[in-house]
């Protein structure tokens, strides 16, 4: 205070003013800001590529070609997007209620385990018709994930145990549990994997129909993507158009008001954690029956549950927006591997993410540049 009054130099300068927005920005604004953030992230990434001795423009062209360039790579992108979509939906429904379920990874693995158990126990023999096999496996996968979500949900509801810790820790238990089974019980010749599933327990793939439609040859996109998209639409309906969804949204926005409206919060914590787990479990089921065709931890525990958290946030917890965002992420994962196994592409991914998350600031605040005379 005292210093500023003693200095009497006249200077003209510019000042950045950051003000919270009082009115919501227009509807197009969030979209433009998000696209701007991605472009900005790509720009920074380009500088990085240049530093690494590459040609940014050619690299980006290559990435685009490698993920959306032709029907074959597009199909691979969708395969990558499927598990992300389901785990992101799982996270979104829990986050809507401010339940910080970061255990989608473990629920995904437990879903895969429960679905595999149908084949490996075996509950159903290899001769079972495919429709029955898939239906039972879907139910088993959802039940496995739901059970893994029920435990932290119950602890949270009854004893107020922090769900962040329990869900995180249960991820490791899930991996260890599956490892125990594939090492000790269902091991194929001592390898850390189960025997391959019979084809009746595989989700149908596009290449299965190549006999009648030759252009589908080699396309590995499987039925999981249809499941994921339908789940996204159903979840949107549940959240925005159903009584239960209304309760979830009310609890998420103001638990005090929900209590005042006569809503049982404890019960809903358990139900929502179970639903969240079931969706992640469905993702695990779709991955084992659509891609891996056996129970094996290394491709399962690839971090889909954690990517799901990021995708759910970027989609602002809107199930319909999760569809394109997960496809974008599938593309990034795929294209990244095309140009370099790790390293620069991962960094670009990270930069885009940080830009997107930081751009949220522009939705809540506005920045003005004012001239000041000091």
């Amino acid at each position: 205070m005292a210093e500023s009054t003693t200095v009497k130099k006249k200077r003209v300068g510019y000042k950045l003013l950051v003000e919270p927005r009082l009115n919501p920005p227009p509807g197009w604004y969030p979209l433009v800001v998000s696209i701007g953030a991605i472009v900005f992230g790509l720009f920074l990434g380009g500088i990085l590529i240049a530093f690494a001795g590459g040609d940014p423009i050619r690299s980006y062209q290559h990435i685009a070609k490698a993920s959306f360039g032709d029907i074959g790579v597009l199909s691979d992108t969708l395969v990558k997007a499927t598990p992300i979509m389901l785990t992101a939906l799982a996270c979104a429904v829990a986050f809507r209620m401010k339940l910080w379920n970061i255990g989608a990874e473990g629920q995904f693995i437990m879903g895969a385990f429960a679905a595999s158990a149908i084949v490996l126990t075996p509950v159903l023999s290899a001769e079972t018709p495919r429709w029955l096999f898939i239906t039972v496996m879907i139910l088993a996968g959802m039940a496995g994930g739901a059970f893994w979500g029920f435990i932290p949900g119950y602890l949270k509801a009854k004893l107020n145990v922090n769900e962040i810790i329990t869900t995180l820790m249960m991820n490791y238990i899930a991996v260890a549990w599956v490892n125990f089974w594939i090492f000790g019980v269902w091991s194929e010749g001592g390898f850390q994997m189960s025997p391959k599933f019979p084809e009746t327990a595989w989700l149908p793939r596009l290449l299965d129909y190549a006999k009648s439609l030759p252009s589908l040859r080699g396309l590995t996109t499987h039925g999981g993507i249809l499941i994921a998209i339908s789940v996204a639409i159903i979840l949107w309906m549940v959240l925005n158009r159903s009584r239960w969804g209304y309760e979830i949204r009310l609890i998420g926005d103001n638990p005090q008001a929900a209590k005042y409206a006569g809503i049982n919060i404890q019960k809903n914590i358990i139900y929502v954690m179970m639903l969240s787990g079931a969706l992640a479990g469905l993702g695990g089921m779709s991955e084992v029956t659509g891609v891996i065709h056996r129970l094996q931890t290394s491709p399962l525990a690839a971090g889909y549950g954690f990517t799901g958290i990021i995708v759910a946030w970027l989609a602002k917890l809107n199930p319909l927006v999760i569809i394109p965002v997960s496809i974008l992420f599938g593309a990034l994962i795929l294209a990244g591997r095309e140009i370099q196994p790790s390293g620069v592409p991962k960094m670009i991914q990270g930069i885009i993410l940080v830009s997107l998350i930081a751009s949220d600031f522009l939705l809540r605040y506005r920045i003005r540049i004012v001239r000041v005379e000091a």
Partner: protein
Amino acid sequence: MSSGLIYTSSLILSGKNLIYTYCRSSRLTQTFSSPPDTPLAVEMRGIVKRFPGVLANDHVDFELKAGEIHALLGENGAGKSTLMNVLAGLYRQETGTIHVHGKQVEFHSPRDAINAGIGMVHQHFMLVPSQTVTENILLGLDTPRFFMRLPEYDAKIAAMGEQFGLIVDPRAKIWQLSVGEQQRVELLKLLYRGANVLIMDEPTAVLAPQEIDGLFGILRSMVAQGKSVIFISHKLQEVTAIADRVSVLRRGVSTASGVPSRGVSRQELARLMVGRDVVFTVDKTPGKPGDVVLDVKDIHAENDKGLPALRGFSLNVRAGEIVGVAGVAGNGQSELAQVITGLRPCKQGQVTLRGEQVSNRNTLFGIQHGMAYVPEDRTRVGSAPNLSVTDNVIMKNFRLPPISHGGMLDMTAANKLANDLKLAYDIIVPNVATPVRLLSGGNLQRVILAREISGKPDFMVAVQPTRGLDVGAIEGVHQLLLAQREAGAGILLVSEELEELLSLSDRVYVIYEGKVMGEIQVGQVEPDQSLIETIGLMMTGTPLDQIRKEEVGAHG
């Protein structure tokens, strides 16, 4: 917008004039002049502090003598805390001067105030729960610089505690201490920083009765050692028990300044505190009370801190009447509303709604049996700020047709309901998809009232329904409540605004420390001076029976 502003400000002006005329006639002239040799520890002159829309302190004078306990009395919102926050350096006055020990001071921060020897213990303690008493006391000080040397400081603080009777283990962690002990830590913090003027903001509000006696002992021992104490309170018993002198604030104006507490009757203090207001003229038809809708019988309940908040409280509300609950905030009103609506368990006694028990059941039971509730806190309890107006108006009836269809919500019906209510209740909002956090206080209150009333309740609890609203909005809320009474609903109105209670209610109960002090029929009678005095006495802890007895004694 602009016309509303003009309207409000003109009303504030006229209201101020009225208060002035009243105050002039009833201000206690300071005939009890003190011995001139006692030096003044603090002298505040002509303090003005304004907040948006409120004149919190209007040319207030305040004097504190060295070595006295000085009570500052007033209702909630009278400006007591504001005045003391100015003295403690948290707020800056717009005009007026402060002298401390004869020297004029300018405080820019609480640090300046503490350097001048003035410290304040707030109602909400500012302690770090996971740290020890000594660590909390040393927090923010320059010494010790790097190594904590805790044993050395533990001994220092223990010695200081011994000196002032503030017995507390310096090595104990704050979370292990009772509220009374935490208060002692706050006092030690100030004494350690060299404070000799201690401001205590409603120190007894958080204490159990035996702890209050302990606190009074501590205050006396501190005064005996040359400290001066300002004691903010709204409880007359305490004031007469502990204070040497009393100052009274009412609506930002000083109505008594430095009156010896022995020389003034409790009636007089009650009147200075509560005063007499222009009662709103409300068109109210004579009541036609029907059967009892709500019966509260001898309920006991605890507050959030686990202290008893309701101690054998009983009342009843009949159909077609408004029953008021008067009292200074924090005497169990919120807990009463929560017990009735099922949000808070009651330990003993029961609440029945048309003969069916509603206490200790879930909230849903009350909702399904025709109970409406306008909660005290509009934004934290009564609404979901980020959800739309539509989502907020269906909060109570989303389980019923036409909104609900077998588990799905009919959003067309919900939006239609929201639009109908928007028209009927004059809710000013661009469209019903707007999140309610963008609504003004009055508009949000209308959304809540629209929701509660449109359910056609048999019984409604309204807690502070007009708090923070401008005059026009208050008028609107009053009309809505009266219309409900006309329609035959029973209404329990909890308010701190006495004029509101007296103009709307058919009967008024006065609550003090969780007990009924008395019940008064208001009806069509123009409230007179003695009635207001009686209510004022009850609000500060004298039961009606006792007042009546004293009256009979005085007249007979």
